[in-house]
C-alpha cells in the first residue's frame, strides 16, 4: 500500500529536522525568486531615491550609494543567484558526470586521456581558474554561468568516474553483459541509475558552491556587471561604504549566507538519506 505523499514528507522531516528546515528556506527562496516582480516594491536598477538612507519603514533595508532600494535589489538578487547557481550546476555536473561515466566505463586510452584533461582543469585552484576564465571571457551573467560550469565539470567527471570504476566491477554488470546487453544499454539501465544518488548530492551541494563562487567573482570585480542585482556585487559596494552604511554589506551578505545555509542543510539531509551506512545510531 502506498503511503500518502504528505505523510511520507512528514516522516522524513521528523527524521531529518535540519534537512526540513533547509528545505523550508529553499522553498521560500525559490518563491522569492519566482515572484520577484510582485514582491519587490521597486525595480532593481531604479536609482530614484536619496543615497545611504538607513533602514526605515519606507525602505526596510535602506538604500545604497546610488539611491536604490536595497530590499528590492536583495529580492531581485535571489532570482539572479538562484538562476546562475542552478543553470551552471545543471550544465556543469550533467556534462561532467556523463563524461566521467562514459570514459570510466569505456576505460583504457579514453579514460586516461580524459583524466589528463581533468588534471589540467583541476591543476589550478578553483577561484583562480574562474578568475582567469572571467578575465578572458569578459563580464556578463552568461559568461559567469559558463565559467562556473567549466569549474564544476572536472569535479563531477572525477567523482562519477571513480564511482563507475567500482560499479563496473560489480557482479550485476558482469551478469548484464553475460546475458548479452549491449554496452549502451548497460550504461543507461545499469550504470546510470546507480550514479543517480551521487549525481543528486553533487547538484545540491554544488548549487551553494556556485552561488558563493559567483559572489566571490563579483567581489573581485570580475563577475556580473556591477548594475546587475548580484548579491556579491552588492556586498562589494557595501564594503566600500562600511562606515556610512553598514546595511549595504550586511543584508546581501545575510541573503547569501541564508541561501547557502539552506541549500547545505538540504544537501546534507539528502546525502544522509541516500547513504544507507549512516542510518541508525551508535553501536
Amino acid at each position, binding site marked *: 500500500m502506498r503511503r500518502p505523499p504528505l505523510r511520507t514528507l512528514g516522516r522524513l522531516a521528523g527524521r531529518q529536522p535540519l534537512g526540513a528546515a533547509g528545505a523550508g528556506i529553499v522553498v521560500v527562496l525559490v518563491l522569492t525568486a519566482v515572484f520577484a516582480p510582485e514582491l519587490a516594491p521597486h525595480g532593481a536598477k531604479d536609482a530614484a531615491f536619496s543615497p545611504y538612507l538607513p533602514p526605515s519603514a519606507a525602505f526596510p533595508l535602506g538604500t545604497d550609494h546610488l539611491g536604490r532600494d536595497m530590499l528590492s535589489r536583495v529580492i531581485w538578487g535571489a532570482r539572479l543567484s538562484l538562476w546562475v547557481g542552478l543553470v551552471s550546476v545543471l550544465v556543469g555536473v550533467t556534462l561532467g558526470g556523463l563524461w566521467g561515466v562514459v570514459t570510466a566505463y569505456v576505460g583504457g586510452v579514453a579514460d586516461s586521456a580524459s583524466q589528463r584533461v581533468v588534471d589540467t582543469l583541476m591543476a589550478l585552484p*578553483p*577561484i583562480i581558474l574562474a578568475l582567469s576564465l572571467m578575465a578572458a571571457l569578459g563580464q556578463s551573467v552568461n559568461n559567469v554561468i559558463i565559467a562556473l560550469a567549466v569549474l564544476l565539470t572536472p569535479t563531477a567527471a572525477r567523482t562519477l568516474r571513480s564511482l563507475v570504476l567500482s560499479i563496473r566491477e560489480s557482479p550485476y554488470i558482469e551478469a548484464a553483459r553475460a546475458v548479452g546487453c549491449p554496452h549502451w544499454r548497460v550504461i543507461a539501465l545499469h550504470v546510470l541509475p546507480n550514479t543517480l544518488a551521487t549525481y543528486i548530492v553533487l547538484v545540491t551541494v554544488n548549487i551553494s558552491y556556485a552561488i558563493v563562487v559567483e559572489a566571490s567573482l563579483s567581489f573581485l570585480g570580475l563577475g556580473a556587471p556591477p548594475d546587475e542585482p548580484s548579491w556579491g556585487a552588492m556586498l562589494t559596494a557595501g564594503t566600500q561604504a562600511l562606515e556610512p552604511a553598514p546595511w549595504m554589506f550586511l543584508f546581501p551578505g545575510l541573503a547569501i549566507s541564508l541561501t547557502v545555509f539552506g541549500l547545505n542543510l538540504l544537501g546534507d539531509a539528502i546525502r544522509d538519506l541516500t547513504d544507507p551506512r549512516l542510518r541508525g545510531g551508535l*553501536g
Partner: protein
Amino acid sequence: MTGRYVARRLLLFAPTLLSASILIFVLLRLVPGDIAEILVYQTGSESSAVQEKQIRQLRAELGLDRPVVVQYVAWLGAAFRADFGQSYSQKRPVIEILKERVPRSLELALLTILIAMLWAVPLGVVSAVRQNTWIDYVVRVLSISGLSLPIFFTGVLILYLLVRLFGWLPPLEFVSFTVSPWENLKQLIWPALAQAYYISAPITRLTRSQLLEVIRQDYVRTARAKGLGERAIVYRHALSNSLLPVVTFVGWWGGRLLGGIVIVEIIFSVPGMGSALASAVSQRDYPAVQAMVFVMALVFLTLNLLVDLLYAWLDPRIKYA
C-alpha cells in the same frame, strides 16, 4: 602501494603542470585589451595615430607582437632558469615579487590550517560520539553555518567589528615574523581566523562522518566486546582510523586555500601573493599573473601528489588501475 602506481603518479606531475601553464598562457592572451594599450591610453586622451605607433613599439619591446607559441616557448625556457621576466606594473623582476610575497601567503595558510584543525577535529569527535543529541545538532548547525558564511562576508564582518569596536585598522606595513613575531601574528591572526572558520566546517563534518562510519566497524565492536572503555575505543581505535581522510582532505583543501587567500588578503590588506595576483590581473600584468598562477598550480599539484601518495600508502585497500 604498488611501485607502478607511484611511478605513474610521479610521471604525470610534469605534463600536468605543463598543460596547466599552457592553459593559463592561452587564457591570458584571450583577454581583450593588452598591457601596451593600457599603458599608452593611461593618459586618458583620445586614440590617435601617434598612440597607435606607441602601442606597436611597446608591443615589439615586450615581445607581444610575436606568435603565442613563440612567446610561450620563450617563457617556458626562461622559467626553467627561474626567470619569470619583468613585471610591467612594478618594473622589477617577477621572481623578486614572488620571493617577497610567497612566504607571507604560506605563513597565512599554515596559520589558518593550524587554527582550523585545533578546533575542528575535537568538535567533529564530540558531534559523532553524541550523534543526534542537542550537542550534535549545535555543532552541525555551527559547522554548516561556517560553510554558509562566505569568506568575504565573515572577513568584512570581522573587519567592520574590529574597526567599530577597537578602532583597529589594517596595518600599512607588513612586519615579517623574523623581525617581530608578535607584531607579525597581530597582523595575520584576523585573516587567519576568518579563513579558519570557513575551512573548519568541512573538517568538522568530515571528522564526524568518518568517525560515525568507523564506529560501526567490526573491530570497534570487538574492542567494545573485550570490555574497553568508551574513551579508549573512540580515541585509540576509532579516531586514528578516521583521521586519515581528514588529513588528506586538509592537504587537498590547503590548495584551495590559495584561492580564498586572494579574497582574505584583499580584505585585510595583507601584502601577500593573493593581493598581488588580484592587482596584477586588473593591470593585465601578464608576466606577473602568469608566474603567480604557475606557482599556485605548482603548489596545488605538489599538495595533491603528496595527498595521493599518502593515501595509497596508508590505505592498501584502494586499488589503482
